[in-house]
């Protein structure tokens, strides 16, 4: 080095346990990669299947039809004056968003094993960018719901502008468990069989086919609070409140759901960071 010998070069030190120091800064530096990976997933998805977009619409549509038939005709649950399909969609859209975000995130590492063994980047980018695909699917189904509302001549209240807040909450709720699941997936290859089961189970313990207030009516206010520990209760209730299906927002319950989501996210990031350094060696 001659004249530029004194120039300021950023020095990087590689040592056991040292990666933490740069992690969050690197995360920012690799933000373009985050967008490109999300863009790739979307592009591939819509290129590979002719039914790419159609599928995103068909799936909730079919499930909705089944829900409407079973719950309104057979079970005869009350819907409180709101068209029943809208009540169901209000629960189902956020649920499906959560379910697809969780499963996309949990597959993200194994699906990108070739990247993990060949290049460095903060690995958390993979599960995070996989959420974008779920978000786009969700946007499509939202448009569908808007059409259903128009069909029934239903006008949602002004507070629908708060909807993105609950979408963000659903993302947080999915990312935490998603991080844990994807890291476990690297280590235990049979863990991926557990995820659909968790999602299936989650569907029944979340207020998708009924309102959360049913819990309070039948089991008392304490039960409702316990029930709200399920992060999706806050998301779905909030979502329904935004589109006007639910008139009041149970604030205590919402706070509990948000707290659980954040706690799960914190746990997820911790677990992910703890196992991350071994990914390239075991994947």
């Amino acid at each position, binding site marked *: 080095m001659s004249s530029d010998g004194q120039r300021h070069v950023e020095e990087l*030190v590689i040592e*056991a346990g040292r*990666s933490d120091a740069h992690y969050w800064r690197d995360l920012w530096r690799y933000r373009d990669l985050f967008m490109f990976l999300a863009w790739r997933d979307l592009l*591939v998805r819509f290129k590979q299947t002719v039914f790419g977009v159609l599928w995103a619409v068909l799936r909730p549509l079919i499930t909705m039809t089944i829900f409407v038939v079973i719950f309104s005709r057979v079970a005869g649950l009350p819907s409180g004056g709101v068209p029943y399909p809208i009540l169901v969609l209000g629960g189902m859209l956020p649920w499906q968003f959560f379910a697809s975000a969780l499963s996309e995130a949990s597959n993200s590492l194994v699906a990108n094993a070739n*990247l993990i063994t060949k290049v460095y980047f903060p690995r958390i980018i993979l599960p995070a960018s996989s959420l974008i695909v779920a978000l786009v699917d969700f946007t499509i189904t939202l448009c569908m719901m808007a059409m259903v509302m128009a069909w029934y001549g239903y006008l949602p209240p002004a507070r629908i502008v708060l909807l993105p807040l609950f979408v963000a909450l659903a993302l947080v709720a999915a990312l935490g468990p998603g991080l844990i699941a994807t890291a476990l997936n690297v280590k235990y290859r049979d863990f991926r069989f557990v995820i659909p089961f968790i999602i299936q189970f989650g569907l029944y313990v979340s207020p998708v086919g009924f309102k959360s207030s049913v819990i309070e009516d039948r089991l008392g206010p304490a039960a409702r609070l316990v029930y709200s520990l399920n992060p999706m209760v806050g998301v779905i209730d909030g979502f329904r409140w935004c589109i006007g299906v639910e008139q009041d927002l149970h604030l205590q319950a919402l706070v509990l759901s948000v707290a659980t989501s954040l706690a799960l996210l914190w746990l997820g990031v911790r677990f992910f960071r703890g196992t991350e350094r071994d990914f390239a060696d075991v994947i």
Partner: protein
Amino acid sequence: MAQPIISVERLGKRYRLRHQAVPYATLRESLAATARRWVAGHAPPQTTEDFWALKDVSFAVQQGEVTGVIGRNGAGKSTLLKILSRITEPTTGRIRLGGRVASLLEVGTGFHPELTGRENIFLNGAILGMTKAEIRKKFDEIVAFAEVDQFLDTPVKHYSSGMYVRLAFAVAAHLEPEILIVDEVLAVGDAEFQQKCIRKMKDVAGHGRTVLFVSHNMMAIRRLCTHGVLLSHGAVAACGDIASIVDTYLEGCQQDAGRASQSFAGGESRPHPAFSRFEIVNAAGEARSTVLTGEPFSVVLGVHNPFDTPVAATIGIEVLDGEGVSLFTTHNDDASRELSMLPPGPSMATCLFDPNPLMPGTYTFQLGMVDRQWTRQDVVVPEVALRVDQVPYVADHMSSRRPGRLFVKLNWSLSGPSVVRA
């Protein structure tokens, strides 16, 4: 002396080998083991062994040097590069890097077959650490270097293998890091393109950037590198001027001639088709590492397909002379237009070298397997060398005095008004 741009101090990397025949731990097994522990009240004997892929490795590289890292398979080259590229962490020791690092451990990492050339340039660039703005700036140069401008909007799954490799290398060649780490990428692509790559890498080095280059191709190493680090069994065996390092390495290879077969550990446990064994067999069916000139021999490869279904795979054998110059490459589907399918589980591929075109000398092989998209599945360089000895009783026939590297038997005829017919 200036501060080195790369300094590696007492670097070590330990892998834990579990003595179990399972490729991946499964949750079910872990749970079952835990349950057994509770019931039995003591831990079942689980044998783990520490394996040091690298131990106490120290060396330094000055700015602007092109350093070749050489060594046999399993000497720790890949592990070293993975640590330098921050893909995996070292167990002990430290590395100081005085600049931005870009590493190219594989050509076309993250290329997606469904995406077009244009899309893959952006994606691959981002994966290699470029920002969107940088890629935009370099885009035209990359396309020109790769010579794929007509096919920019064609999905790369329709590319020929040559185009694919060119595009992939072009993206990587336009990275502008202070330190470039390159692993064996020249093993792919045609000779002309390899030359182009070497020129480009020399150019990169000429601009004061530092290159760390791993290859089994001693020709490329000699042409490109100024310094060398020889790794052996995870430790630095020699370090210094490239010519002497290459000589030391080749001497070591010569001494090892004699073994005729080699098994590749872990070939059966990979998640993709892989080589498990390499063997040289003479015409009589005996495992031999020495044949006579003109004597046919076979290379027998053990291959393992981990999937439950047959997969398309092309298997290639590259023959290199003692200097590491590639003589020719043969593929198992050269003679047919059908896709070559690998049955599930273990199978054997045999390549009969008949006629045997090799002149007296020592030869090494490189094995490669690619899938339909020409994506590399496995590349292995067996440590087994083949020695071809001159047939003793034929005076001048096929002697080492005959110029040329190969012996090719062709059909000759002699014509003229007074040719005597026997």
